[in-house]
């Protein structure tokens, strides 16, 4: 019975119902199946929502992004990339991937991100570089380049952050293992994030190199 909520989530997303309604339905069904009364479920949801407010703070950067875009930030990105003759979308995104991984590895995860850096800087620069490589971009190409810029940000963040000692996931591992009598220092855990970080760089870097080759034709 406890799995009914998961079934609703999976089915709801697959059938493309409105995500907010799917989440609400799943929460209510899961709570009812576990024997809570409806008011208690609403209260639990409200408590968790209030505690997770920090997640939505990021939207305060939009006025800055909007101000800069209204004054030609994306057009300026195109002008900048025109000055660098060797700049390609693949090389630029590989460069951003390294920066993002290194910053995350020293604990600076919120320095970059989709609203802070991808929308105002990374995506327009990548698009401008691709435009120059391929001459004319189709709409599908444009979509792909922008999505690739966002994907590169995610991959850089995910496979850099665990190298940092005090990141949430490392502390979670330490806490869980301690409950089972296994005591580890954060450093012992975080060094083992390095092999995967290197693999992530090589795999994604290779895909970006292939993107460049495809655009050249």
């Amino acid at each position, binding site marked *: 019975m406890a*799995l009914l*909520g*998961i079934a609703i989530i*999976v089915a709801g*997303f697959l059938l493309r119902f*409105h*995500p*907010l*309604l799917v*989440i*609400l339905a*799943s929460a209510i069904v*899961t709570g009812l199946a576990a024997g809570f009364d409806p008011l208690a*479920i609403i*209260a*639990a*949801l*409200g*408590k*968790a*929502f*209030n505690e997770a*407010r*920090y*997640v*939505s703070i990021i*939207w*305060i950067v939009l*006025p*800055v*992004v*909007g*101000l*800069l875009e*209204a*004054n*030609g*930030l994306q*057009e*300026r990105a195109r*002008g*900048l990339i025109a000055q660098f003759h060797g700049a390609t979308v693949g090389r630029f995104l590989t460069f951003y991937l390294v920066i993002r991984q290194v*910053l995350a590895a020293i604990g*600076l995860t*919120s*320095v970059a991100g989709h609203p802070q850096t991808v*929308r105002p*800087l990374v995506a327009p620069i990548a698009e401008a570089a691709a435009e120059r490589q391929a001459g004319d971009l189709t709409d599908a190409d444009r979509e*792909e380049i*922008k999505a690739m810029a*966002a994907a590169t*940000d*995610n*991959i850089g963040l995910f496979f850099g952050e*665990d190298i940092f000692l005090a990141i949430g*996931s490392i502390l979670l*591992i330490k806490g869980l293992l301690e409950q089972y009598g296994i005591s580890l220092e954060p450093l012992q855990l975080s060094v*083992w994030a390095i092999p995967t970080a290197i693999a992530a760089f090589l*795999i994604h870097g290779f*895909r970006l190199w292939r993107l460049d080759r495809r655009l050249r034709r």
Partner: protein
Amino acid sequence: MITLHWVYALAGAIFAAYALLGARERPLNAAFWALLAVSMWAGDRLGDLGNGLLVLGLVCLGSVGLRSVGRLNRGDSAVAPALRQARADGFGNRLFVIALIIPATALAGTILFKAAPGWIDGRQATLIALALGVLIALAVGCLWLRTGPVVPLQQGRRLMDQVGWAAILPQMLASLGAVFALAGVGDVVGGIVSQAIPQGSLLGAVIAYALGMALFTMIMGNAFAAFPVMTVAIGIPLLIRTYHGDPAIVCAIGMLAGFCGTLLTPMAANFNLVPAALLELKDKHGVIRQQVGTAVPLLIVNILLIYWLAFP
């Protein structure tokens, strides 16, 4: 001391501005942002049930009123491309300098605030520094680009309306995770997975653990929710106790196998759906599509890394 509550107050003010500026054009969107402003300002005083009712209100408005988000909102307050090009030529690299103020302040603030505790809550240093960076960038931007303070808020509202209800998706999914935890969903899933493992095969157990991490992360949208479930069900009893795997390697790389799942699921809305809305992609799963080619090979690499490195 400056804490996260100052940042919530600022966020509330900005959401309130989005609501006021859009009230006439898009009353339903405006009501949505107004409720978020209330949550930011008064969330701690509403009580659990009060917050729950606020969530219901957001879901109602979000699912009924904001459906056309992303298509209808393109036009209003947008600046014509020719004018943008002229301004870009005029302002030049100033625009980049202002854009970099936010990350630079977040970077410097994180380091400085941690070094000088007492004034600022060190645990929240980055978020507080980020908010400070926004204020500095706004002030510098308005002076340097010679515009009034309403322009950035108006443009911010336009972008916010493009994102629409997806703006609260990450927060909603985090809340759903809390309800799942209360209802003990993780224990049930862990029980099922530990029964499904092939007996006597080390590689089979490693695959079950890493794949289980990725799949359960995809369902929950969060590797943190999957990690305790899978590690208690498979990681500790089987990989660590039975096969004597190194706990540091099993757990550290197991968590990263979960991160591969995060790249593949719409449930991780803030990483996968929100950027699609923010970048105005037609395909809301476009970011996930680009990530498959990296996430799947990387998951296989993680399985092999655990298998090779963790077992002597």
